Every structure is written in structure tokens, then in C-alpha cells.
């Protein structure tokens, strides 16, 4: 089963290769991986999309935790989360297809971020199914280039009733 694991790591050189080495050395899958700094510049946030049965995921989480440069590991599948991915799609457009390309972009609330007489570059953000759908629709027009960011994800904040929150604040 697919899992999204959010990993907070030290922002140092070599950390990415420690993580990548862990996955390749132990035969775990990486479907996508994205890294960027957090609000605190000494830390980076990684979102790793991986798959495996319950025992493998447990090992992945434990092995990540064991790495000294890893500060925090959260298996987002343990609760509710939202995830997004961005794709940049450069579509080849003949004059008769240009309107169709714009229409598809419009349906999916995608943006055209660059345009030449023969191409559009379309930016689309969403869950992977949405991106797949856009790609499928644009494919007949002719996709020249495609680049995807890999997914980023964040846990949904749990919703508390007002009363509980008030008590908590009072205690703090």
C-alpha cells in the first residue's frame, strides 16, 4: 500500500544521500521524494512517497528515525492528510488545437505560464489523479515535455470543539 512519509531532517550536505542510501540499501521503494527548507533554515522537510506492507512501512519509519540527521518522522497515512503535486506540461499546439488546450487548462483550473506560437506551457496543481487526467487529455495534442514535482503533503489539523480548545488554552 502507498504511504506518504513526512521527514524533518538536518539541513546539511549529505543528508539526502543518507536517506536515498537507506532506501536503496534495504530495498525499499521510493516513488517520489521532494525536499525543501523549512521555516527554520537549519532543517529541511522531505516528503517521501513509498509503498509496502505494514511491516515494511514500520521498518521504513524506524530506520528513518534511526538516522542521526533525521529529527522527526511522520507516517501521514496514520491520520488524515492533504497532498498536492505540481506538473509543468509543455504542449505542442497546432493553430486548430490552441483553443482546445486552453479549454482543458480552464476545466482543471490550470494556468498557462508560457506561450509561443506553437506551444503552451501549462502549470497544474492537484492530487495525482487530477494531474494524470490533465496529462491524458493533453496527450492527443502532443506533449513536448513534462516535469512533475513529486508530492508534498501535510496532515490535516484535527478539529476540536470550542470548549475543549478553551480549556487547553486556559491550562497553558
Amino acid at each position, binding site marked *: 500500500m502507498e504511504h506518504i512519509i513526512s521527514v524533518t531532517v538536518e539541513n546539511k550536505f549529505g543528508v539526502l544521500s543518507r536517506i536515498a542510501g537507506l532506501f536503496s540499501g534495504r530495498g525499499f521503494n521510493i516513488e517520489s521524494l521532494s525536499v525543501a527548507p523549512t521555516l527554520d533554515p537549519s532543517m529541511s522537510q522531505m516528503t517521501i512517497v513509498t509503498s509496502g506492507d505494514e*511491516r515494511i512501512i*514500520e*521498518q521504513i519509519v524506524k530506520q528513518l*528515525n534511526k538516522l542521526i540527521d533525521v*529529527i522527526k518522522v511522520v507516517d501521514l497515512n496514520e491520520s488524515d492528510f492533504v497532498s498536492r503535486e505540481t506538473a509543468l506540461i509543455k504542449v505542442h499546439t497546432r493553430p486548430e488545437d490552441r483553443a482546445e488546450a486552453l479549454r482543458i487548462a480552464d476545466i482543471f483550473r490550470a494556468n498557462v505560464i508560457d506561450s509561443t506560437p506553437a506551444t503552451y506551457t501549462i502549470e497544474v496543481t492537484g492530487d495525482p489523479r487530477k494531474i494524470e487526467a490533465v496529462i491524458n487529455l493533453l496527450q492527443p495534442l502532443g506533449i513536448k515535455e513534462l516535469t512533475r514535482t513529486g508530492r508534498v503533503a501535510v496532515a490535516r489539523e484535527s478539529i476540536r470543539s470550542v470548549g475543549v480548545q478553551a480549556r487547553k488554552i486556559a491550562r497553558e
Partner: protein
Amino acid sequence: MKLTGAEIFIECLKREGVKTVFALPGGVVLKIFDMLYQQKDLEIILTRHEQGAGHMAEGYAKATGKAGVCLVTSGPGMTNVITALADAYMDSVPLVCFSGQVPTNLIGNDAFQEADNVGLSRPCTKYNFLVKDVNDLAATIKEAFYIATTGRPGPVLVDIPKDVSMAKADFIYPNSVSIRGYNPVYVGNKWQIKQAAEAITKAKKPILYVGGGVVFSGASQELLELAEMTQIPVDMTLMGLGAFPGEHPLSMGMMGMHGTYQANMAVHYSDLVIAVGARFDDRVTGKVSEFCPYAKIIHIDIDPTSIRKNINVDIPIVGDCKAVLRELNQILRATVNGEQKELRKSWWDQIREWERDHPLTYHQEKDGPIKPQLVVKRLYELTKGRDPIVSTDVGQHQMWAAQYFKLAKPNRWLTSGGLGTMGFGFPAAMGAQAAFRDRLVLCIAGDGSIQMNMQEMATAVVSKLPVKIVILNNRFHGMVRQWQDLFYEGRYASSYLDTTPDFVKLAEAYGAVGLRPNKVADLDGVLKEAMATDKPVIVDVPTYPYENCYPMIPAGGCNHEMILEDPPELKKKQSQAGLVTPEDKDTVLTA
């Protein structure tokens, strides 16, 4: 006052209480060696190969429980020490390895003797550092020792570029270390420990399965108390030998592929396995799906990744063995009473029956070729009064040593378990001898594996490390030959080594002592003579070449299905070959 990087390095080692550094110089570490040359506090043992330096540091660490330290140069120095790092990583040995690196401005330029030391060692160290600024050096070394020796111990590499060892900085040694991503858990979960205690009190057929973690955490006393209080038999892994007294009536000896019959049967038929500081290695579990099928499993380990990695566990307890066992004993003291002994009577009857029916056996003819088991047994009996430290290489001799050398105390057993590194034993013994100059240090080796680090004999002689090597010389890679006999229809592909070199002459060439008993009657005398010598000694014992090590669980087999002796067709073949000592190669190859 500002110090150079090399001086800071030395100051840091002194603060960490390091006494001995196993080292081999080279271009980029010369500044450090130059400073080491001008001081008196640290002893430098110059090895003949970097692998030897690494294994010596391991032997030192295993015997003392403190971090072993080695120092190598860049490039080939680093690649040579990798085997020792990988070995230490597998067996959780605290080790700090310092490597030289080309100057920072040349890193990445394919400079002379450059290697990506951090990249090379990443998969076989607990952590590694490249120090790019001399101002970070002291703090980095402090962190390196902290990481190597805490939690589940392991090797740490510190890579020091040449310019960093020469640049100057203020020396400030931090008093403490805090790493936000590294917080080993020592105290076990109280509720889980309570569950474990309850399971132990109720179990009818419990067994303790004890690994190297008990040795490293110094939990032998707690283990002894637990076993005696609850009357639970104790199985030891190869790494756990010495954690529990080998001659204690509760000791079942070693378990696993070449473990004793009672140890493997007991674990298979038990209803409660209490794993302490062990990791369910495939050489212990055999076929995972049929490992102790009737048992509930309690697993105590400091490394959370060990738990549920290979085997499903019912009561996991993450924590230091010593702390957890102490807590467990405290609870059990209040609950355990005479009832358990009654409850487990039939279990003990069964175990004693297994012991009686299939003890470790070998057959020694009075005038026949010397059997390897006899050598280990006599060595044990002749030296046990001196509380020796014993190292081994890897192979048949290692298994016989594990079966017949019944260690009474921990930190006496130096062997390469996880990685199975031939060539480990001799340098490891020297490392232990460097730590304990007055103790008797034995190295039980095979004629194949001793040759893998033979060059260190020069180090042993020059540095006055009087290790006593006993070679069980069967002129084969014995374990390979055994597998070929059992599983490859006796085709001895590349396992026959012939009788070179002459180890007695070789020892003499190095300035050590070489001895050889030629028949059974000479054995005791020669061993005694060796033990009485104050120089390094090689005792080259020609042994029966076709002896196989039993019991044996074939790889991937079940623990209760052991091979206990040579299969009939193999016996027949051996009797046809006669008791050859294969001076004549043709006899062996057609045998």
C-alpha cells in the same frame, strides 16, 4: 593559545580517555603523526595493513567495552579499513576511525590518494563526518565518541582533510553533547515490562535467547539473577557467548546453525522466548516462518529497528538490556515463588533428555589424526584457570571454539558474527592484548583465515603483543569443504589449500615462536609450552581434514531438524579415502 588541528586531535583523544591508537601513516595524516610522535600519553601501535588497524580497534573495544580508535590515511588507507568498519557495524562494536583526506581545496578533483571517504563509509558506519573547518574539529570528535558508544554502539568515521590538521584554532572541548535527531531510549516501557513479567511467571516452557547486547550493556549479572530466580534455560547466540557462564547448569550453550541440540530444540518447542539484546539473525532463526512456532516472543533491544524486523514480536521492549532486566527482576522478585519450579519440571526433564541423547560428540582415535574439537577442548581445559580472552576467525574452527570453549565471563569472546570476516581473529586478539598486557589472549584460527591478516605478525612481534595463535590446520577452507561435501556432491572447488606455508617457519621468520604437535600425545605438551612463552606463538596443529562441524541446521532449515552426523554416503566416502593427510593432492581431489 591556538592549537593546530593535529594538536586538537590529540587533546580530544586524551579527554576521551583513549590510551591506544592503531594506526598506519600516509601523506595527508603526516601532521597528526608528527604530533603523536612528540607526545607520551597515547600509545601508537603501527599496523602493517589498515584492515588490521580496524580489527585491532574492534578487539580492543570488545575486550574493554570502550571505543576502539584507529587512524588511517586517505584513499587506499580508507578503502582498506572499510572491511573492519562493516564488521563493527554488523556486530555493534564502538569504534572511532579517523581518516586523512586531501586538502579541502582539492576535494572532488581526483587528487592523489583521494577517495570519497564519507561516501564510501556511509552504508557501513553508524555516522560519519567530514570536518571542513578546524574550529569544528573538537566538537566533532566529541560527537563521534558520543555516537559510537551510546545507544546501539557502532563505528563512526571522522574524515580530516590535511589543511584542517594544520590550521589553528582555539581548543574548546565541549562538556556535553546534544544531537536533536539522536536520543537513544534506555529505560524500557514500564507497562510492557510488567506484561513481560506476567508472561514469564505463567510460562511452562520458557527460554532465554541472549545476544551480544547483553555483553555490551554489561547486563550479565542481571541476566544471571533472572535465569536463576526463574529457572529458565539460557541459549546464547554466537555474539552472546560469555554473557552467561558457559558451565552453569542453566546454560544450553550456543544456539543457531551450529548450536547445541538442546539449545535449538528448546527454542523450537518453547512456549515463551525471551530475546535479550539479540536480533533474530538468519543463522539463528533458520526458516523464519517456522521459528519457535509455539512461542510467545518478548524482545528486549535498544535498537527499535531490530524489533519486528525478521520476526513478529508479542511484547516488544525498547531499552538498554541492563536497565530493562533490572526492572524486570524487581517485579519478578515479588511474584516468583516455588510454583514456577513445579510448573516447569516436565520442561526441564525434556531438556535434560535432549542433553543426554545428543551431546556434542567427536571421535578421537588414540593414534589417529588429531581431531580439531580435541584441540579446542584441551586448550580450554588447560587455560581456563587463567581467564583468557579468546578470539577466532570465521569458519569451522570458529564454531568448534564456540561449542567447546565455555566462557565464564563477558568481554572474553572476540569473534566476527554478522559480517563473518575471515582474518578478524588475529588482529582482534592483538587489540585485546594491547588493552590488557598481562592477560592471556588466545586466537583460535584456521589455516585459511589466518593468512588473511598474517602480515600483522610483524606488528605483534614489534609491539610486543604475545598473542597465542592456535591454527586448526586442515589444509582446507573447512566450512566451504563441509558445504561442498553436504550440498555439492563433494566437488572441492577452490577449497583445498595444500600445506603452504609452513606456519612454524613463518612464525620464526617474523621473530615469533612456531610449534607443531604431530600427534595426539604431543598436544598437551605443546599447548603448555606455548602458553608459557612470553612471545607471540603460532601453534600449528595438523588436524583431520574431513572433520565436519555438527549439529548443523542447513541454511533456511528448521531449528528442530538438525544434521547430527555425516550422512552415510559421506562416511563411506571418507572411509574409502582412508585417514589421509592430503600431502598427496591427488588423493584429496579424487577422494
